[in-house]
């Protein structure tokens, strides 16, 4: 794609085909007050075929947001509460002996759905996490000797609680990297808090309607990949990622001692796709640097490993990404 007319055609197409995103946001707004950032990131994950890790203290409507989204999109939804005694078979399924037939039959687990809510993913042991993360990566699971492909769309929205770390199994870095986005969910504002009070304590608790078909999501994914990205933006993305690996080369001397490992090439891929999806949500057929900046934190924060020195100075990966974004020249 290169001509002016083609961008205009794409703009028009996105305006038409992307109209359902406004309906989703409006419907979500019935049950979720505020949290626009979290909802948009969930949609970005949906449009990019990438999984999302939501981190926040209990009571911030993470679970409600995921279940509402699944209902609006009209796809099969499963919620799995991760606990220390969960087994991989509880997740992916198992072989059951059928006495009448004298043979084993497959009993599929809850992972056979379109949208999975993996609640408190860090409470299950490593073997369960591995089973789920393998399914996330491969879009398939093997039970016994048979391999089953998972339905499309297949989206895992996992939640974890940053407090109460006792008795948890923190996800290893290599596995966290499988998540396209790590979204930190914050508290609502004073005004939002008041609205929550009004809405949830009087009259009937609102519910959401089925509005969007899975085919709409598949078409949107197609469009997101068509969105035009200029070479300058691509260079900008690469510079941001490289700056996390070799900050000194970008004049970010402050970060040299703070980064143990920088972002992987997977970050480059996801940052590109997430920026396109962000442009799609803004109904644009091309990507602006603002799109990249808007999603960079969510794409990069879990892919940068700070050093011990950084931890001692209470410099988080968020701080590192923000400094890198400030230091890299915007095209």
């Amino acid at each position: 794609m290169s001509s002016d007319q083609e961008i205009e055609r794409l703009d028009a197409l996105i305006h038409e085909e992307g109209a359902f995103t406004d309906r989703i946001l409006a419907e979500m707004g019935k049950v979720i007050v505020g949290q626009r950032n979290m909802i948009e990131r969930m949609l970005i994950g949906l449009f990019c075929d990438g999984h999302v890790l939501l981190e926040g203290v209990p009571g911030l409507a993470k679970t409600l947001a995921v279940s509402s989204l699944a209902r609006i999109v009209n796809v099969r939804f499963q919620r799995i509460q991760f606990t220390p005694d969960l087994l991989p078979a509880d997740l992916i399924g198992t072989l059951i002996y059928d006495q009448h037939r004298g043979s084993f039959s497959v009993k599929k687990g809850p992972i056979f759905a379109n949208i999975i809510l993996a609640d408190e993913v860090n409470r299950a042991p490593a073997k369960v996490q591995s089973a789920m993360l393998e399914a996330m990566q491969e879009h398939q699971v093997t039970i016994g000797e048979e391999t089953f492909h998972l339905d499309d769309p297949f989206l895992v929205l996992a939640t974890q609680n940053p407090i109460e770390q006792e008795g948890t199994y923190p996800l290893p870095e290599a596995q966290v990297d499988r998540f396209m986005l790590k979204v930190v969910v914050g508290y609502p504002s004073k005004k939002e808090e008041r609205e929550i009070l009004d809405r949830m304590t009087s009259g009937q608790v609102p519910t959401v309607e089925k509005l969007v078909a899975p085919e709409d999501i598949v078409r949107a994914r197609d469009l997101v990949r068509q969105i035009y990205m200029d070479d300058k933006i691509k260079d900008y993305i690469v510079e941001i990622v490289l700056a996390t690996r070799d900050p000194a080369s970008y004049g970010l001397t402050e970060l040299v001692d703070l980064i143990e490992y920088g972002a992987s090439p997977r970050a480059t891929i996801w940052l590109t796709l997430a920026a396109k999806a962000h442009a799609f949500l803004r109904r644009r057929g091309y990507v602006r640097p603002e799109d990249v900046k808007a999603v960079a934190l969510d794409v990069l924060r879990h892919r940068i490993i700070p050093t011990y020195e950084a931890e001692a100075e209470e410099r988080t990966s968020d701080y590192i990404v923000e400094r890198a974004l400030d230091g890299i020249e915007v095209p």
Partner: protein
Amino acid sequence: MASEHRRRDPASVVRWKAQTLLSLLLPAAFQFVSAEVSDTIPSNVTLMALVDRKVVPTNETVLLNVLVEWQGPADRYRFGWPETPEAHRLAVVGSRRGSKSWVDEAGEHSRQEFTYVLQPQEVGQGTVGAVRLTYWDVADTARHSTTLMTLPISLDIVPSARSDRSGPWGDVAISLAVLAAAGLGIWWLRVRGRTGRRAARSAAPPVPDELDGRMRMLARARADGDATQFYDEAVAVVRIVLARTLGEPVAGKGTNDLVGLLEKTGWPEDATASLRLLLEKADRRRFAPSRPEAWELAQDEATVRGVLDLAARPADAPAAAAEEGNVQ
């Protein structure tokens, strides 16, 4: 010496020399016995390599300081680490990097400093090879890089018992060096007090050469009908003017941030409204293929020229530029 080539203004040379010496002497208070300086000087960037002593015992280390200095803001040039110098009879055992910017009557200056710790390996004549540094001007979209190189530095490596500082004369040398550093420090503070450093935003600067160059490229891009180049230059001009007006770096800011900064300039509302529109339109022109009409480019060029008028105006002057129609 680098400083002899660096500036033509003798007062600046003296100040700079003192500042360089102080940066080496005062913070670490290390035993400054002798130094060797070498450089290669292009137009605006100076590269220097210095060692903190000429004679080093085998059980001690020597510091190699590589200083890169230029006139202009810190983000004007982009540098990588200098190639680790080849050293004969010496091994590089550590390094660090620092940077600094300041303003005096000659304008804004910036410096990057790379320090290497060298450990002697054997007794004899040690040599620190040429230090090479590659940099490029961030304004140069083609990213033509320039490499600077220093001259080699030689020093004597002596057995640990035969240091030139051993014995009472070494202590005398140390004491003299500390006294000299203190004296230089007092002198420098007085000089600095007289020159009266000021904040970058304290006065509206005249339109400098960098902006002239940008405006020429912008006019050429308009004549060529190159919309992408035209809006690249237009945004660059707005960035430079905003950075100078507000005295804060804007390189890492996107369009939304720049639009937010317009509110802080105190410029007339119609001027900031026009600039807001220009910045928002520029993204469409720069990051997606487009063919704007010639009149549109002419109109936007006038808006950019209006920004220059606003920036050149004294801070307390009335908003004449916009009222006269310089800003669309």
